[in-house]
């Protein structure tokens, strides 16, 4: 307080200088810990690779080449990034509202299976064929709605009974994954003769999101996800709903006293979170796999938590961290091919990143950083 008062007394020239530097600091400060966490994780990862008898430099060179070394590498990085980005956005959205959505894995699977059903089943249901301009949005909408509805349940339970969303989102993962497994083995199973795989039929051509170039897998879902990140960022920052979500997240008591409908906001936040995650699953189906198959998810829903945290729950940050995760997952294959170092090392590094980001104080002490932003509140106690 004293310091702030004194800095306010600087003559004008000083004030503008310190204002500019303050603006730079505001921009750099939130990036410091995530960037240092990634670097530290890569350093420790290098130690792990060396201990396993590999050459860390060669491994990381292979990783880079695999992620960015060619048009195909770049295309695949974008393909991997898309689900990370959407699921990460969803989880970040919930965090902004003070809610910990651990249920992304289940919401993703339900989004995917709903989109798959809409992809192959809707035309028949509506008697005939649908134009792509209608079928694609409808399919995506189905996926988003499924995710939203599923995520809204723990939100509603929280406002109604005080049941904690952490427990309920985890529990609903099991329900969702088993339900999807049933659907894929039962009512929605691909009826092609001789099929023994738990998967849906292929979706109609009219439900498919196109690729840019025939030879590459990168599809229009990627720019769509980027656009959604911008939209979510604008919405949180500039709309009254976003302000309410952030206020409920920062202080539900103050939000209530200010006349905000905390209960409605909580349910809405979870639904929005689930919609984004479900859309992630839907895009995997409509743009990439063209069907849903049991076990298609590479753990996107859980990695999404790491993506959101590394991105500090800011949509711009989530774009960067999703790109990082996409690039690492994609490059890992090439790394393994070139150096015989198992791609699983990448999982270790991703886990380390999450560890360092979560243990923010550890990184600050390691690099002698002063001060620090307000501690990140991930979730509140029971019945909050």
């Amino acid at each position: 307080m004293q310091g702030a008062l004194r800095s306010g007394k600087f003559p004008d020239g000083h004030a503008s200088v310190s204002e500019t530097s303050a603006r730079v600091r505001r921009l750099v400060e939130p990036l410091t810990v995530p960037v240092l966490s990634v670097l530290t994780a890569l350093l420790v990862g290098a130690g792990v690779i060396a201990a396993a008898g590999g050459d860390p430099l060669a491994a990381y060179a292979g990783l880079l080449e695999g992620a960015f070394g060619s048009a195909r590498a770049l295309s695949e990085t974008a393909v991997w990034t898309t689900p990370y980005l959407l699921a990460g956005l969803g989880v970040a959205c919930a965090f902004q509202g003070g809610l910990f959505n651990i249920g992304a894995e289940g919401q993703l699977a339900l989004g995917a299976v709903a989109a798959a059903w809409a992809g192959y089943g809707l035309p028949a249901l509506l008697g005939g064929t649908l134009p792509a301009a209608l079928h694609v949005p409808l399919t995506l909408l189905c996926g988003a709605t499924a995710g939203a509805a599923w995520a809204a349940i723990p939100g509603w339970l929280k406002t109604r009974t005080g049941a904690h969303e952490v427990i309920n989102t985890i529990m609903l993962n099991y329900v969702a994954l088993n339900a999807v497994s049933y659907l894929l083995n039962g009512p929605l199973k691909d009826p092609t003769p001789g099929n023994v795989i738990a998967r849906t039929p292929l979706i109609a051509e009219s439900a498919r999101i196109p690729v840019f170039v025939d030879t590459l897998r990168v599809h229009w879902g990627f720019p769509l996800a980027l656009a959604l990140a911008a939209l979510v960022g604008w919405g949180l920052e500039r709309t009254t709903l976003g302000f309410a979500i952030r206020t409920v997240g920062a202080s539900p008591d103050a939000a209530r006293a200010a006349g905000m409908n905390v209960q409605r906001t909580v349910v809405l936040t979870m639904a929005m979170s689930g919609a984004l995650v479900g859309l992630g699953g839907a895009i995997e189906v409509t743009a990439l796999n063209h069907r849903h198959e049991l076990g298609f998810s590479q753990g996107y829903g859980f990695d999404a938590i790491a993506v959101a945290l590394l991105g500090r729950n800011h949509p711009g940050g989530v774009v960067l961290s999703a790109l990082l995760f996409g690039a690492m997952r994609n490059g890992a294959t090439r790394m393994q091919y070139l150096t015989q170092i198992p791609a699983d090392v990448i999982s270790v590094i991703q886990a380390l990143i999450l560890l360092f980001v979560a243990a923010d104080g550890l990184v600050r002490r390691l690099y002698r950083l002063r001060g620090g932003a307000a501690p990140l509140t991930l979730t509140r106690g029971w019945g909050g």
Partner: protein
Amino acid sequence: MTADLARDPEAHARPDEDRPASSTPSVPPPPSVPPPPPALEARAITRRCPGALANDAVNFVLREGEVHALLGENGAGKSTLMNILYGMVPPDSGEIWRSGRRVTLRSPSDAIALGIGMVHQHFMLIPGFTVAENVLLGAEITGRFGMLDPRRASAEVRALSERHGLPVDPDARVADLPVGIQQRVEILKALHRKAEVLILDEPTAVLTPQEVGELFTVLRGLKARGTSIVIISHKLKEVRAVADRITVMRAGRVVGETTPAEADEQRLATMMVGREVLLTADRSPAQPGDEVLRVRDLHVRDGQGLPAVRGVSFSVHAGEILGIAGVQGNGQTELAEVLSGLRRPTEGQISLAGRDVTTASPRALIDAGLSHIPEDRQRHGLVASYSVADNLALATWNRPPFAAHGVRDEKAVRARAEALVKTYDMRPPNPDALVANLSGGNQQKVIIARELDRPVTLLLASQPTRGVDVGSIEAIHRAIVAARDSGAAVLLVSAELDEILALSDRVAVMSRGEIAAILDASEATREQLGLLMAGARTTP
């Protein structure tokens, strides 16, 4: 709370009196010349906190057998200095001397070993334990095989309390005792550890005026037996009533040392704040209009489901201030929560400007013209991680001028904030400053600026100046009176009798969830209110 009250033995009579009146010791003679030697000394103590000097080369001398008040606003560095003298935080530089010897305090146990005891503002007692168990905690009396010996423990604590004139039942459970007696247990704890120097941090904050009087009697008794006492306070009346000498701190520095004889309240306030301060709110008589708030037979349960408000009825008219006086925890908090829509009543009826709002939501109440200065400003009034500007837009964040069609107008938010920051003289004068970095007084200004920046039908102000510096109190009181004069009905809930008397047109006294009496402010006396607050049913 006043000098006369503290010295008036009549005022000590309390309904739950259960100890001999003869324990009141005689007032000792004034300090002799030459002055007694120092018992505890701080020499050039400096302590840096992030962004500020909490203590800047502070010198402080406590002499043997005196009551020395350390006076200053919140954040002036009083508690930091005392925490240093009690070994809780180390100084960055400077020396501590105890009875002519330089000492180093690494922890409170060092301080205790040197005969220094401290009673913290928030008591460090275990509610489920008895008085004796609490006093002896850490120094338990054991019999054979290390078994506890409760009988001997109880006898020892009884002897200790009688020796020091601090009557208390050693076998009573601390949770069952009133706050004033709990404080006595804290003092006994320190005395049991052979404290010759006693530091009391804001000891009167939670007491009724009568309990304050009793505390001062106890302190004078301890002084007569040779204990040297430091009392930290920001209440001018109390400081003048009890202290032999007064050291005033401001912004981490000692600005002067004086005595109650040399400095009147106005002088002390000026020293504390650094400029002339208006101690009484300047206001004209009320011109009450129509009934705005009407509360009938209201019953409310607290968070534990226990009855907190038990059948309260009153009304507030436009253009008047109804003050609700009472010691903390007598149902005022729950009453204010119900009136602001944060809690549901179990029975009764509330109407605001003729409309039934018994179960209205905060939103509906705000729309009906309620402005609310909540008791817990950190929890209900502000979002600490938001800027001043965003906090100023909090209650009407979704309507013009702050938003239209669901999109926020950040330019309008900022423009309004710039104007309000100027009007209310907030420091720092920066709408982008985070509210978390503001002082208590400035945080409160943010809330008041926001709540009065729209048409006000009813202003509900709960403890509006708690933890607020003297300089800001003046501005806050002016704003409340201005709201009244512009035709708002004002319900003021405050545990500070001074505030109630300075602002109210009528005073309702709450005690144990009921309204003991509603008096005209011009007729109410401090003593009368004090007795009603303490639970007297009829006015004396």
